[in-house]
């Protein structure tokens, strides 16, 4: 039989892997037990048709607790560039770290074509040491022709509706309604679980030129 420690840790890339609850591994045994107990109470409310949003809020706050410390990269000062015009007159781009790509244009991580999500999860430590690859996604593509693979988060929601991490359809709609001057013809995605130093280098050396060639003046960025 598992100890409480074994049980909670198994949700983070272990035998009970569930990326929605991988944060349990970073809680103490007492904290994890408290989280689970409260979850059952909130599920009971849900069974009685009461406060369905509270369980979701509880899960979100559990995740937030683990990430409520500054990361490895902290900066005292910000960099700010004003758009200098109305969004309705500007060219707007989209780049997400969700791991989307067009079907048939697999970025082939580690040379593997058609890598499954399960394998990506299994190889997450290798991804974290790897230079990310930028996938170019035409704005004319249909959502059904996009694929997602990312070993760092639960992709079940984005498999149902990719717009929750790669909001292509609402942006096309906002362009049609003229809230956006022009949505860039090419949009971008990459796997955010990657080597951070290598990421900064490849953005400065390579990605920035690709993005500038699109005439993008404002960029919407979406981490997962």
């Amino acid at each position, binding site marked *: 039989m598992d100890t409480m420690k074994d049980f909670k840790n198994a949700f983070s890339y272990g035998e009970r892997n569930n*990326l929605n609850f991988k944060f349990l591994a970073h809680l103490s045994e007492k904290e994890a037990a408290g989280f689970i107990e409260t979850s059952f109470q909130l599920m009971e409310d849900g069974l009685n048709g009461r*406060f369905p*949003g*509270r369980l*979701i809020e509880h*899960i*979100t706050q559990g*995740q*937030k607790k683990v*990430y409520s*410390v500054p*990361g490895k*990269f902290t*900066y005292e000062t*910000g*960099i*700010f*560039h*004003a*758009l200098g015009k109305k*969004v309705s007159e500007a060219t707007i*781009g989209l*780049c997400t*770290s969700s791991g989307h790509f067009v079907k048939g244009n697999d970025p082939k991580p580690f040379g593997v074509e058609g890598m499954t999500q399960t394998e990506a999860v299994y190889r997450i430590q290798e991804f974290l040491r790897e230079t990310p690859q930028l996938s170019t996604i035409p704005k004319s593509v249909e959502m059904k022709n996009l694929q997602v693979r990312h070993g760092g*988060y*639960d*992709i*079940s*929601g*984005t498999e*149902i*509706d990719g*717009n*929750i*991490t790669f*909001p292509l*359809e*609402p942006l096309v*709609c*906002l362009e049609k309604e003229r*809230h*956006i001057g022009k949505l860039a013809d090419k949009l971008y995605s*990459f796997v*955010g679980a*990657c080597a*951070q130093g290598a*990421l900064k280098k490849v*953005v400065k050396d390579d*990605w*920035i030129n690709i*993005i*500038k060639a699109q005439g*993008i*003046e*404002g*960029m919407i*960025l*979406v*981490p*997962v």
Partner: protein
Amino acid sequence: MSVGHLARILEGEGIATVVIATEVFEKRLTSMTLPRLLLTPYPMGRPLGFPRQENEHKLILMQALKLLEGSKGLTVHYWKKQSGNMSSAESKEILVE
């Protein structure tokens, strides 16, 4: 945080940015002093909300575009009151720099 690095480099290259992220990453992202940050009340992997909530996705993007157009750095909390029917939306602005 990959997107934080990307935001800072793009701003330095003359491209304005706005980040839409779940509030789970609030501390990580605010500690990177990003110019414009819209935080949503959803769990990891769902920064624009739940699947097939088209109106919600659009509302969040509209708020992000409003931030993008602004002339100062802001972190904005976008959330819906957990009032049972989750029908009322509010936002709160916090000056970053």
